[in-house]
């Protein structure tokens, strides 16, 4: 492949306040585009998919690069925190290892120095590696816009490939994760064409914890990437796991159900049929791995 030429022309604006960004987005509409790492935006601009006249650098807004952990409130990760920062932050590693594992699975080390958590979610690719973890950890997306701040649960944030619940003049400022339930364990299993460094063919996050209110004594949450127009929770599989006694038989049944909940497409990375089979395989593997930590 020939090296593509440089970026098309645009004006760069480094925003100092969130209100300044909101105003720009209101005034300029589609012609203005926020960015943080640029690892999605610049590629799309170079490919001629989008042509913003102004790119607004929002990674210097106050607090947008902070990670704050509170033993009651949980974890708040600023939207512009990079994947490497997420993956090695001591509070993330200690209390949300699943999120660290997911962040660490993105692209290459040097790209993870630029790629941000917020950018990954805003871009809303079905393959976004931090989406399944954010779904099963019940993350909430913090948005700031003309009417101030609001929070949207991750389960309601993704609307389609590249489409989110973000309003046209809103920006994402942070992602909030509640405290994980006591005794929880999680794994993110990603299948790419290579062992590491590639977009996922299938990504599966499995998260489980003891819960006396569940007939089985445990609850599991399963998040899937690259197998539907949006990253999603496999809720029918989750129900089986809440109802039936944990163990190989139930796990096989739940993995089968997760496969049925996936509606993948054929693309350059894999066929739909292969993706479905891999949802089953990775879900089963994830359930076994999490169960090993729980039991």
């Amino acid at each position, binding site marked *: 492949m020939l090296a593509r*030429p*440089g970026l098309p022309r645009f004006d760069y604006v*480094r925003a100092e306040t969130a209100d300044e960004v909101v105003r720009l987005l209101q005034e300029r509409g589609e012609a203005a585009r926020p960015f943080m*790492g640029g690892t999605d935006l610049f590629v799309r601009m170079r490919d001629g998919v989008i042509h913003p006249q102004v*790119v607004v*650098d929002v990674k210097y807004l106050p607090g947008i690069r902070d990670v704050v952990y509170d033993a009651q409130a949980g974890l708040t990760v600023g939207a512009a925190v990079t994947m490497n920062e997420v993956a090695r932050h001591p509070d993330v590693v200690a209390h949300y290892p699943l999120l660290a594992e997911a962040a660490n699975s993105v692209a290459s080390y*040097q790209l993870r120095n*630029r790629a941000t958590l917020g950018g990954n979610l805003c871009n809303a690719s079905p393959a976004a590696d931090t989406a399944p973890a954010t779904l099963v950890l019940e993350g909430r997306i913090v948005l700031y816009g003309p009417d101030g701040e609001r929070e949207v649960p991750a389960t309601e944030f993704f609307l389609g490939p590249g489409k989110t619940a973000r309003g046209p003049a809103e920006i994402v400022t942070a992602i909030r994760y509640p405290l994980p339930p006591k005794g929880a364990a999680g794994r993110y299993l990603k299948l790419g064409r290579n062992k590491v*460094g590639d977009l996922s063919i299938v990504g599966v996050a499995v998260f489980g914890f003891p819960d006396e209110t569940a007939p089985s004594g445990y609850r599991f949450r399963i998040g899937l990437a690259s197998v539907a127009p949006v990253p999603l929770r496999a809720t029918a599989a989750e129900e089986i796991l809440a109802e039936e006694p944990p163990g190989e038989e139930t796990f096989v049944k739940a993995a089968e159900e997760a496969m049925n909940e996936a509606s993948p497409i054929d693309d350059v990375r894999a066929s739909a049929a292969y993706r479905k089979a891999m949802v089953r395989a990775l879900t089963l593997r994830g359930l076994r791995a999490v169960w090993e930590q729980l039991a």
Partner: protein
Amino acid sequence: MGMHSITVTVNGEKEYLEVPSHMTLLQMLREKLAITGPKNGCSAGECGACTVLLDGEPVNSCMVLAVEVDGHEVVTVEGLAKEGQLTPLQQAFIEHNAVQCGFCTPGMLISAEALLKRNPHPTEEEIKEALVGNLCRCTGYIRIIRAVQTAAEKGGA
């Protein structure tokens, strides 16, 4: 078109530059400063031939805007050797013949230097993971990995 006056330290030298908004760090290095170690392999963050250190951490310079490095420090492969003295890693690349066409080498060296700095004694697996964003069409990687191991044995980068 927006122009920006920036001050950036490149390989220890302070540079005062006028750059347009849409210029990448890679273009700035190659076309404004004639620093041609960093290569344009894909312009898309895939190949790693453009890898440089930004404030000590490796980044794909094709994916960074020149205006973003205002006030920061950039090191390219040209800045690794000090007073004509190659680093142990560069020496090891020579010893192991870890170079064929050389197109990937500037990026490989930067990524590997950064690895040895944060992890002076990496396992083979850790070396492979750290270099996954640096593609090489020639060597088959084995010699590159051996070179990094040798440099690590000799006390890091």
